[in-house]
């Protein structure tokens, strides 16, 4: 279900943005293809500036509804969505945008929104009553119910008979830029088949018998799911069916109604507002033993207690820790912004000989952690400050190492400029000299 909600604050931001785009002299055109890469790219910029605060940067919904799932109450056709953005829903807090954005701009937003489409569209189902648990033959005389599912979620609780086969079929959208899989939770003995564009997809048990998956194609495809109840007990028939990334590390979106209820718990966003946030949690792309720190300036870093190094830097809000909390918390938390670099790239002191890192802990200094550690018996302190969402300063103290030369290996990252008032950059290295108190600063500026 989605209507687009906008707050007054966002409206003000949007007005500012319109002024900016007017300067860019964007020409209006009446015709726009949904798959036009330029339009999608333009729409992404507009969306993130005007819509993301209410509908979330990933379109997954916040104050406003999820914009990438299959549930639409004001029409799912692109032109209907264009009109909805133009006219708004004042009763729900969303103004019309027709006076703020050109038709072309709004269409580009719609192109971007549709490019992020996930899950079923035009989903229908057919329910067959079978003679017994072993009956596997579908025939038209066994068809007892059929219809459309407006929310585009497979509802495995529809059947009210004991022995049945239910088919769900419709257009299905997966991310265009990454491989994904269907996963049936606790599905080792589930009698289910997946057909994509008319071809049966083999069950893939690479993650174990109890974690069966079926790989998808990328982008739009025709998907048919067939489930036979057989001898399954009632609680086993309501399937949790989720699309994951290729290594199952990230649960992307639900396919069934039960999965949707579970996925709702997988969103709990940590955002630094007035002061930094420290959170130690399993995080995607960060090695074990990492501690994440998020700044209100919308920049974040991670310090690793086993490497004694900075192992990640990302812009935007901090983390969605929902995946690490929902259920048993198996999944990694997800950075909400964009990576600047992450492990194995890291900011690390280089030693001539293999060194021993000993993490000691941290103190909070005005809410910011100062990490304490030893490398080869020399004690170091690291306090990090953020100036804005592009510049961050690493304040080091090398205890008992006044006026000493040190070398750091710099992480590989595009558009990231490393500087230091206490040294100079050479290729991938930074050579610094600590001051009389053992202190030195390393700065990173994202271009």
């Amino acid at each position: 279900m989605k209507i687009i909600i906008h707050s007054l604050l966002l409206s003000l931001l949007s007005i500012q943005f319109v002024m900016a785009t007017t300067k860019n002299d964007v020409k209006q055109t009446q015709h726009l293809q949904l798959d036009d890469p330029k339009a999608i790219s333009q729409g992404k910029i507009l969306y993130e500036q005007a819509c993301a605060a209410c509908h979330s940067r990933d379109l997954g919904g916040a104050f406003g509804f999820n914009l990438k799932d299959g549930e639409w109450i004001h029409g799912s056709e692109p032109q209907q969505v264009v009109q909805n953005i133009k006219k708004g829903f004042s009763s729900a807090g969303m103004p019309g945008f027709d006076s703020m954005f050109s038709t072309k701009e709004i269409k580009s937003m719609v192109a971007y929104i549709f490019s992020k489409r996930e899950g079923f569209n035009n989903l229908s189902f057919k329910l067959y009553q079978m003679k017994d648990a072993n009956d596997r033959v579908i025939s038209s005389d066994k068809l007892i119910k059929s219809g459309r599912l407006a929310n585009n979620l497979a509802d495995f609780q529809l059947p009210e008979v004991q022995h049945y086969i239910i088919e769900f079929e419709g257009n299905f959208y997966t991310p265009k830029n990454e491989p994904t899989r269907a996963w049936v939770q606790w599905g080792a003995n589930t009698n289910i088949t997946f057909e994509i564009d008319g071809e049966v997809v083999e069950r893939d048990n690479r993650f174990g018998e109890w974690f069966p998956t079926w790989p998808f194609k990328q982008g739009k495809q025709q998907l048919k799911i067939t489930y036979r109840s057989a001898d399954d007990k009632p609680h086993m028939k309501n399937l949790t069916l989720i699309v994951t990334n290729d290594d199952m590390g990230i649960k992307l979106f639900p396919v069934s109604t039960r999965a949707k209820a579970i996925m709702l718990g997988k969103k709990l966003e940590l955002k630094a507002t007035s002061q930094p946030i420290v959170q130690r949690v399993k995080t995607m792309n960060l090695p074990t033993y990492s501690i994440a720190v998020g700044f209100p300036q919308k920049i974040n870093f991670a310090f690793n207690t086993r490497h004694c190094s900075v192992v990640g830097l990302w812009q935007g809000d901090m983390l969605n820790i929902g995946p690490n909390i929902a259920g048993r918390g198996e999944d990694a938390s997800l950075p909400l912004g964009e990576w600047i670099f992450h492990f194995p790239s890291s900011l690390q002191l280089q030693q001539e000989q293999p060194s021993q890192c000993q993490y000691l802990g941290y103190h909070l200094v005005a809410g910011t952690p100062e990490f304490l550690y030893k490398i080869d018996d020399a004690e170091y302190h690291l306090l990090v400050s953020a100036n804005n969402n592009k510049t961050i300063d690493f304040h080091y103290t090398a205890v008992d190492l006044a006026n000493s030369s040190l070398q750091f290996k710099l992480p590989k990252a595009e558009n990231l400029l490393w500087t230091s008032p206490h040294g100079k950059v050479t290729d991938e290295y930074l050579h610094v000299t600590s001051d009389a108190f053992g202190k030195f600063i390393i700065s990173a500026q994202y271009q």
Partner: protein
Amino acid sequence: MTTKSALSFAASLLLMTTQGFAQQAPTDTYKPDGYRMVTIETPANVQFHIAGLDSDANGVIYAATRLGEVWTLKDNQWHKFAEGLHEPTGLLVDDDGSILVAQKPELTRLRDTDADGVADSYLLFTSGWDFHDNYHEYNFGPVKDQMGNYFGTLNLSHNNPGAFSLGTMGSAGGYRGFAYKVDKKGRFQPYAWGLRSPAGIGANSNGEVFITDNQGDWVPTSKLHLLQAGKFYGHPVSLIDVEGFNKDNIPTLSLDELATMSEKPVAWIPHIEVANSPGNPAWDTSAGKFGPFAGQMFISDQTQSNIFRVILDKVNGQYQGAVINFMNHFQSGNIRLNFDQHGQLWVGQTADGWGSQGGKPFGLQKVVWDGTNPFELLNIELTTKGFKLTFTEALDPNSVSVDSIAAQHWHYHYSGKYGSPKMDLAAIAVSKVLLSKDGKSIDIELPLTADKVIQIDFPGLRDGKGRSVSVDKVYYTLNQLITDK
């Protein structure tokens, strides 16, 4: 109990026995007279999954949540003390007022150095084990002995493809499935091994450390152990970190070899009937503020949302003992217990991911006693011919007869399968019941077989006021018979 009703009771027990006596949770509410549970309101809009719980000398409650926060409760006011921790599942208020918290990757000492009520020092105390970001790799504890040493336990992993496994739980190394000891200076020592999911650890006033482990592979039913250095507690996966064992030779060990290596539990905890996922032991050290069970061990269960008592018996110099249900129908999964200075029993709760009989996902409750002496089984001890059962009140002599007592025994099958049914379940005849002079105890005689769990049912007993007990069955783990008397 009349002869007729006693016979009927015995007949129904026999019927259940011959039918296999399926393991099932008690359907009734059990609660001793004089006890009630109080629900504590937790902070609004906070997922308050408590997995670490302790109190200080002033009665301030400290709760660590699975979201990584530490909160204090003082004068009915909640205050956030610390945050950002990695799913802590244990907390100890140390003697110096600092807080030791068991994060998954480390034990951390929290201090409020500027006395503003918020921790500002998060110093590592020890991290001598390896953590691999697997959700099941919990770190339970710490508890402290009289010498100032700390102890904790480390869960095995689950669904970790990189781990060594014999089917279900696994270890990627780094002392998973171990109990550990840390001295005052933070020096880590692998202490004992063979653990699966040892969610409960506690130290009594003598400094003895007891641990619980959850039913599953290589754990036929949940159990309570006395923690001792260098001992093996049954789950073979942890042997991967023990000298002389490796991933090639561990799978070749026979069941008999492993069983011989394994320590016997102090008490088997019958699955579902008493517990599925026991938490930490807590001792009533209130010297009567909590009623007649002073000195006894209490353990909670996450799945059954109940609390049970453990009655220890020292036989031939070694602990064995009995479990008996205490209270049920708590609101969520009871994972942590703590007695405060007032003799109130605090119950920290979380159910997310596993579910519990109590439907709420998390919470905090406490059990308080109003001074009414309940009529319950107080103690059970092994005798040369049977058991001596002592009650909190004198018994009505008319309710005491051979027919008013029924007993059965069984054992469990140790294997890699997930849990065990009751093996060779059989009724055993009570041949004699003798009431003591003070009327509070009965000596019962029945055939005794070592390495059995003996269940004794006594629903027909009444006290002088005509009261019946709220819990009418006790489960005694008979590792050995008396040999030194």
